């Protein structure tokens, strides 16, 4: 049996099948015939390939457009927003799609030739397509034959020629896009700072003038000698050295060495720092209050503490109508213990501070604690009174102590020391600022020594009573007591300075008058110092 027999057997045995009959009657549409002979499935397949190729190319060009625009914008070659890349991507896609899709179109004839060649159909497909309207037996047999042939061929066997090239192009496009996205936009770089030409540096006139002003300020200040002279000498030597050098690094080194020396000299002008450190280190309720007194010249809290402690004992005592001897002895011991507790740590701190006992502040604080006038241990004196249940007397003693010259002299000594600190540290900090050298962290002893301007108030002041200081060199808190030399009594500093400020603001003083007023306040400050000296005598 030859090929023909084999091919024809089914037709011969089954005669005309339903499709054949339908076809022969002319009832079969062209579309049905194309589906019948398997042409439609190949056409769909080829259309899919065409669509895939078009999509790949469209994506590739869209990605490339987007990526290139991104790269150009991010590299500042093209100064537009990177978001414009989306617009270009859409444009490229819109242009590419029809440009690729239309040329890839195919006619039924072309596809038929392609199928005939690719699957060796011996021109069956294109002959059959050319005879769609021919319903002769031979044409029907050809369709039947073709149907059997195409049924054995899967549509996916149509090779998508050139597809790897399209994929490669799409990958290139994707790579371009990723590159465009990955590139970081270069921010406009600020112009590089002008190089510091160390070798070509020289002290400017402004810097020299500023240093001279600092020297003059120290020289004119009330700073204690010989620290003042040493500071002046140091700064004058520095000025000479700076003028002689043309190297900025060397100049900074000179300034740094100078300010460190100046800080050391300044530190040695007073004992306040060392004493403060020592007292603060004890960290009891009484030492804390006394340390506050040193930093803010606020004795109130210390005495309030004492008052409160004594009153507490007094009230306990008053509850007893007729205390027995034992009860009285117990209360006496309690009181002594309390006062010892309030004094012993302070005395111990003074002794541990390393400050010489002849130091003014040292001796004044020591006297404060020990009632130095009669040389009796303070605790004992007050305790005796308390032992006789004379609390009222004890309170009066405390008040008189608070208002005594001892306290006032302490204030004067602190003011004097603070002025030294203010002048010395102010000069060294001024030098630092001139050469951009960072200021050192110091213990806040000079919080109210900020020169002119208002103080921020006592940050640690629980009752918010401290309002800060005022004026150059003035160191006192504005709510503190100040000794009025003329009336020999303490008054509230704030009142004086408020009046002083009002007068200075409202009045149209001549320069002479203004100077006179300022001198008055300077004299007022001087009165403290004189009072202190008298005390010393």
């Amino acid at each position, binding site marked *: *049996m*030859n*090929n*023909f*027999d*084999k*091919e*024809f057997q089914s*037709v*011969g045995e089954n*005669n*005309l099948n339903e499709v*054949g*009959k339908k076809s*022969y*009657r002319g009832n079969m549409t062209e579309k049905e015939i194309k589906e019948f002979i398997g042409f439609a499935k190949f056409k769909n397949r080829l259309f899919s390939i065409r669509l895939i190729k078009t999509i790949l190319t469209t994506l590739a060009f869209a990605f490339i457009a987007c990526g290139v625009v991104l790269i150009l914008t991010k590299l500042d070659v093209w100064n537009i927003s990177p978001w414009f890349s989306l617009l270009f991507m859409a444009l490229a896609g819109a242009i590419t799609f029809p440009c690729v899709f239309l040329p890839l179109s195919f006619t039924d*004839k*072309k596809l038929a*030739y392609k199928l005939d060649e690719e699957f060796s159909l*011996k*021109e*069956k497909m*294109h*002959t*059959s397509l*050319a*005879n769609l309207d*021919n319903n*002769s*037996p*031979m*044409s*029907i*047999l*050809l369709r039947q*034959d073709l149907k059997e042939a195409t049924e054995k061929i899967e549509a996916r066997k149509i090779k998508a020629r050139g597809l790897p090239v399209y994929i490669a192009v799409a990958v290139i496009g994707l790579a371009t896009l990723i590159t465009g996205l990955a590139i970081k936009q270069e921010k406009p770089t600020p112009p590089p700072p002008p190089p510091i030409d160390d070798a070509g540096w020289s002290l400017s006139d402004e810097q020299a003038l500023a240093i001279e002003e600092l020297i003059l300020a120290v020289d004119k200040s009330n700073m204690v000698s010989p620290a003042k002279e040493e500071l002046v000498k140091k700064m004058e030597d520095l000025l000479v050295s700076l003028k002689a050098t043309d190297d900025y690094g060397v100049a900074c080194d000179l300034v740094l060495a100078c300010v460190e020396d100046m800080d050391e000299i300044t530190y040695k002008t007073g004992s306040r720092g060392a004493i403060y450190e020592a007292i603060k280190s004890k960290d009891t309720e009484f030492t804390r209050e006394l340390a506050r007194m040193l930093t803010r010249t606020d004795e109130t809290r210390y005495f309030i503490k004492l008052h409160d402690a004594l009153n507490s004992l007094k009230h306990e005592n008053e509850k007893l109508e007729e205390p027995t001897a034992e009860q009285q002895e117990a209360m006496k011991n309690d009181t002594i213990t309390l006062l010892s507790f309030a004094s012993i740590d302070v005395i111990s701190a003074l002794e541990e501070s390393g400050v010489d006992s002849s130091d003014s502040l040292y001796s004044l604080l020591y006297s404060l604690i020990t009632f130095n006038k009669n040389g009796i241990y303070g605790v004992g004196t007050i305790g005796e009174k308390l032992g006789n249940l004379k609390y009222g007397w004890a309170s009066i003693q405390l008040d008189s102590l608070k208002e005594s010259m001892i306290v006032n002299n302490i204030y004067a000594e602190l003011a004097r020391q603070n002025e030294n600190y203010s002048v010395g540290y102010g000069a060294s900090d001024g030098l630092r600022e001139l050469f951009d050298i960072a200021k050192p962290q110091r213990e806040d002893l000079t919080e109210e020594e900020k020169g002119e301007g208002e103080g921020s108030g006592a940050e640690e002041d629980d009752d918010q009573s401290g309002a800060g200081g005022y004026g150059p060199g003035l160191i006192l808190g504005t709510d503190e007591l100040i000794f009025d030399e003329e009336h020999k009594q303490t008054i509230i500093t704030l009142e004086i300075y408020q009046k002083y400020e009002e007068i200075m603001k409202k009045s149209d003083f001549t320069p002479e008058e203004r100077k006179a007023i300022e001198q008055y306040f300077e004299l007022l400050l001087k009165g403290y110092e004189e009072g202190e000296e008298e005390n010393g005598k």
Partner: protein
Amino acid sequence: MENKIVNKEAEVNNAQAQLDKVKDFSLRVARIKDELKKDVVGQEEIIDNVIIAIVAGGNVLLEGVPGVGKTRLVRSLGRVLSLPFSRIQFTPDLMPSDVTGANIVEKDENGKLVTSFRKGPIFANLVLADEINRATPKTQSAMLEVMQEHKVTVGNNVHKIAEPFFVLATENPIEQDGTYPLPEAQMDRFVFKLIVKFPSDEDLVNIVKMTQVTLDETASSVIGGEEILEMRKLASEVLVSDEVLMYAIKLVSGTHPELEKSCPSTKKYVKYGASPRAGQALITCAKVKALMDGRFNVSYDDINELAYPVLRHRIKINFTAVNDKLGVDDVISMIIKETKKVH
């Protein structure tokens, strides 16, 4: 409306009848082949082409060295076809009347002298023109009319030849002495020129074995003239697309060196090209070949395969080709390669 439906159904029935004929076609071809193989060993391609030519209604020129079975094939075919068969042994002294027949004077029943036509051996359905190139051109020319028009004109009388009619001629390509090459006009009347090659060793063994038994042909008749005519009609219905048809025409016209569109090889190696009969022969025979191969349409391959037997005796190669040691078939191969398919 009812009549229309009835007509449609009648058409379906007709189609069914034709489809039955298509089925018979292959069966008949198979039978012819089977019978021929009883007498002819090997030569499958020759047999196929001879059958194609017979179904297509064409004459065949068989060329081959002596003893390769040319005459035996034709004799066997005469037996298989169950058709009147005659053999003409062409010799130099053969006269045209020896082929076509002649008017003779004879007495009738009343004793009067009358002229009557005595048919020559050409009056058969299948004629074997053995060693046709040995006859003179005069005698050869006597074959022209009958081969093309299937009729014989003697005097004023035209004598038609019964259909189907075929001439199967043989010639020997090596013995050139005493031979007369066929004129181009006659060559053109052969649809195929088939080269009968020397059999392979295996075939030769079978040939020797077979002839040890008997030298006579043993094939029996399996098909008649009517059936052959039916097959020819059926083959004519095989579909040929315009593109394939155009390709066949291009192939034929491509053999003409005088035409601008001819192939480069043609211009170089061909003296003159094939006649339009070549195009007709190509398409007609391609249809038969397609049907024999179980197809219902003609393909490019059919045309290409048949181009050799159809064109090889219709084109003349020039001295350049001979000088380049190229045969006709080589040139045809070049022309096929250079002729683009029509898409």
